[in-house]
């Protein structure tokens, strides 16, 4: 089997890999922001919910969360009268990854938020800004800039974790590699997986480059 054949075959799974990666990362970030918000509330119930979810999210293997998402979540939906049997596998993959990593994202945003000096709030209120604008214009942009190096690391962890979606039968790059290895009776297995590893590495380099470009452009410190 030629190298170009292997690359072509594996790359046919790239759109699925990228779609799941980007979508689950965005949803996980939204969950993370919500968890951060809960953890910063004064009432004990909100704090406790954030703490329990974060603990579960960080303590459960992502593979297990994916399997639960695919096999058990539709059953759960069935109890409330929602038939999810025909829903796309991508939905459950994205949901599983987003839920599985939401706790990490919450902690990442919370630590960035706590890094912002109180005087930034004082100064913003002192010029007459309302609470919403203070968050929108001053605090959240600073929080993202502080969190950016960790967001980058987390994004690359997502990239690698996205290969786990093969267990629920989604044709991503990893799934294509295992299928190709099986078709060739394992003869080209090592070659195929080395190419797969190199492809993931190249994708990582591309994202690293894009992140660094963004960080450089938005660096004010």
């Amino acid at each position, binding site marked *: 089997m030629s190298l170009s054949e292997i690359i072509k075959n594996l790359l046919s799974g790239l759109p699925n890999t990228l779609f799941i990666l980007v979508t689950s990362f965005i949803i996980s970030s939204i969950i993370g922001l919500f968890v951060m918000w809960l953890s910063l509330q004064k009432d004990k119930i909100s704090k406790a919910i954030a703490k329990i979810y974060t603990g579960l999210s960080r303590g459960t293997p992502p593979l297990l969360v994916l399997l639960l998402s695919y096999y058990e979540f539709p059953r759960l939906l069935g109890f409330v009268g929602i038939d999810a049997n025909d829903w796309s596998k991508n939905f459950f993959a994205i949901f599983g990854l987003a839920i599985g990593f939401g706790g990490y994202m919450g902690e990442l945003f919370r630590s960035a938020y706590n890094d912002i*000096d109180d*005087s*930034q709030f*004082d*100064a*913003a*209120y*002192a*010029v*007459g*800004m*309302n609470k919403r*604008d203070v968050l929108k*214009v*001053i605090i959240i*942009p*600073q929080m993202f*800039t502080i969190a950016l190096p960790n967001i980058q690391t987390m994004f690359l962890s997502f990239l690698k974790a996205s290969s786990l979606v093969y267990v629920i039968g989604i044709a991503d790059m990893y799934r294509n590699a295992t299928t190709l290895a099986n078709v060739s009776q394992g003869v080209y297995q090592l070659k195929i997986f080395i190419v797969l590893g190199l492809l993931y590495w190249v994708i990582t380099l591309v994202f690293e480059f894009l992140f660094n470009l963004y960080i450089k452009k938005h660096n*004010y*410190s």
Partner: protein
Amino acid sequence: MTLLKIDHLKKSFNKKTILEDVNLEINKGDVIAVIGPSGSGKTTFLKNINLLEHPDSGTLSIEDKKLDLSHVSTQDELWLRRHIAMVFQNYALFKNKTAFENITTGLIYGKHLDKKEAAKIAEEELKQVNMLDKKDFYPSQLSGGQQQRIGIARATALKPSVILFDEPTSALDPELVGTVVDDIDQLAKNGQTMIVVTHLISFAKRIANKVIFFEDGEILSAGTPEEIIDNPKNDRIKKFLEAVSRDK
């Protein structure tokens, strides 16, 4: 003419009294220097005036409006801050904004001016403090003195009735103090009403027409710089001034 009147301002934190029945009346154009030992409640006093901290009780009258400080609506809070600006000890410039944007942000989001109008005012203010050439610099690219001058420009751009200065020179290197002091002195000469918390007694004497001595959350004594600084009658103030001049 009375511009700002504070009556019976009280603030406690965790059952510890920080401000004990503070009363103050300020006329238009007054420059009030607030001196006193560390921990006496000077900064808390300023933060309670523009409601960065919320007083337990008291009233504040400004511009024909009287506010019960124990129950201030969000709307009144925003209104008050448009009339009382603040300059911070550690500059507190918005780290994610350039010098220029630090000034326009307050004008756009605080005073609701349009961007063009805000830009025009910001340019004028930057010119005023000789910082126009640094307009696109972020705070991290500026020296302490330059940051504080932007902090002053940010406050004056709002055209407030009163500016509160919280130890504006204490975080600066000694050689940078002069320019900031000159800027504040110029504001005083222009008739800007100010309350300045400071440890620099010579600075207090230079700019203020009234000095108040704070101790244990209350005004121990108030009077002209001559009365409080040159000829203090109170032993506690004498002791404080001696200690300050010894430290120098």
